[in-house]
């Protein structure tokens, strides 16, 4: 035991949690890679890839093998260090974001309480937003280091877009922080586990519907998903910031994008849909079953948002750049500010 009160067992538990979270994330990522195509196919009345394994479940493996055997290309005049670093800069922060997200009710195992969260930071939300904005650097650097027009334009767009939407993203959750009184994600989840008017779960979406809308739209832009994927924008920029990338580096960009999608969905579920809270059930009273139930609730909520991302992608056409900026600066930020004002007024009325 050291001066922090940590034993080797504690460290082992944390390491185990990290490994489990990363493995689960990568598994979901594989499923997402397939789901993206199959959902798009289903929406377009097709069947989609269903040949590799049952219902095409191993499609991601086939893709991985394909990516491994592709040639690594360095464009002439590319900055080799940044060019190699950029895909990592997209993937790693996206994976790290999950560290602060609570994904289940604390479990009791061998007389020891294990919170199902890697680190319960007291500034959890800030940590998440800091890492989410780090992800932009990968895109921007990747675009710049390629030494090519289209990736450069893609990177440029990404930087402008991310900076604008970062603001509304951050501002729309201030309302939640105001009513919860904490930046700690576990207390935000616990705050949402009550009941509203006796029948509604006290989720933040019912308390902060406006914030939910602005946050959802901004998170689409942050995750670089259609309708806001201007950094990629195939018809205009060939492939956007990853035009020049090939092989595993390209795959890493995609993995980063999907992991960011998973974490964004998890954050949305945590902040607005009660995290691991299963409505109308007291998890603490149920023991082990409560933990499983909370994990299930969290998975279902995250899964719903993942589906929503796909669903929206295959529904809405891409925004023009000026429309994107207009929506970000002229609509979302004022709305977020109004939400802060309304929340403040509401809090004054309650007290």
């Amino acid at each position, binding site marked *: 035991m050291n001066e922090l009160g940590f034993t080797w067992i504690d460290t082992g538990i944390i390491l185990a949690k990290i490994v489990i979270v990363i493995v689960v994330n990568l598994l979901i990522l594989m499923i997402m890679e397939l789901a993206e195509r199959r959902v798009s196919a*289903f929406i377009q*009345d*097709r*069947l989609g890839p269903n040949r590799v394994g049952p219902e095409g479940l191993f499609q991601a493996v086939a893709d991985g093998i394909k990516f491994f055997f592709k040639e690594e290309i360095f464009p002439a005049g590319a900055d080799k260090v940044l060019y190699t670093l950029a895909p990592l800069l997209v993937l790693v922060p996206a994976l790290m974001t999950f560290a602060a997200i609570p994904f289940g009710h604390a479990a009791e195992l061998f007389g020891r309480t294990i919170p199902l969260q890697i680190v319960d930071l007291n500034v959890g939300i800030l940590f998440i937003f800091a890492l989410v904005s780090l992800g932009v650097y990968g895109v921007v650097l990747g675009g710049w280091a390629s030494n090519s027009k289209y990736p450069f334009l893609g990177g440029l767009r990404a930087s402008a877009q991310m900076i604008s939407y970062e603001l509304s993203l951050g501002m729309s959750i201030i309302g939640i922080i105001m009513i919860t009184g904490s930046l700690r994600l576990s207390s935000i989840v616990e705050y949402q586990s009550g009941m509203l008017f006796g029948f509604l779960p006290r989720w933040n979406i019912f308390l902060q519907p406006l914030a939910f809308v602005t946050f959802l739209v901004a998170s689409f832009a942050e995750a670089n998903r259609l309708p806001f994927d201007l950094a990629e924008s195939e018809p205009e920029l060939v492939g956007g910031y990853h035009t020049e990338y090939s092989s595993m580096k390209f795959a890493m960009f995609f993995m980063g994008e999907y992991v960011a999608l998973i974490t964004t969905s998890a954050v949305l579920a945590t902040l607005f849909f009660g995290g691991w809270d299963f409505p109308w059930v007291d998890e603490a009273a149920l023991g082990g079953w409560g933990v499983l139930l909370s994990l299930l609730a969290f998975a279902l909520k995250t899964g719903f948002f993942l589906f929503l991302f796909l*669903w*929206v992608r*295959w*529904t*809405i056409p891409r925004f023009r750049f000026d429309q994107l900026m207009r929506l970000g600066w002229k609509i979302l930020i004022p709305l977020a500010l109004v939400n802060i004002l309304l929340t403040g007024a509401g809090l004054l009325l309650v007290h």
Partner: protein
Amino acid sequence: MGVKNVGYRPKRWDRSYFPGILAGMWITIKHFFSKKYTVSYPEERWPVPPGHRGAIRLNKDEQGRIKCVACEMCSTACPAKCISMKAGVAPWPDREKYPVEFTIDMLRCILCGMCEEACPEEAIQLTEIYDFSAYTREDLIWDKERLLRNYDLTADGKYFDRSKEETGL
């Protein structure tokens, strides 16, 4: 002259994107659950409509003999000039000639069905076989035996119930 504006003026509510987005998402989710049009080819086959003009066959009569009398009407009618034959004296008493060789170059054939229309004996016909690709060019130059085998495969109208191995295509 006053200007008559007939264009669509979006309302403020429309300009918020919400009605459009929600309507669009309703449409896509309906399609998500609707019938899929994909035909999973080797397992499922496209049901061929009657009158489909697919691969060519040479018909046989009730005694299993080739119906063709080598009159060369088909090769004359053929706009792609893909039919060639060599006539010989028929071994049967009821006709004078029969084709000793009969070759259709399916690489040239445009599946127009003119040969079928020209034939006085209903000896040459187009079938419902549409999956007759091959690995070499030689495999697509069909001789008499190949064309007669097409008849055996399709005569009962159950070509699509046969397995890939059975058809040998």
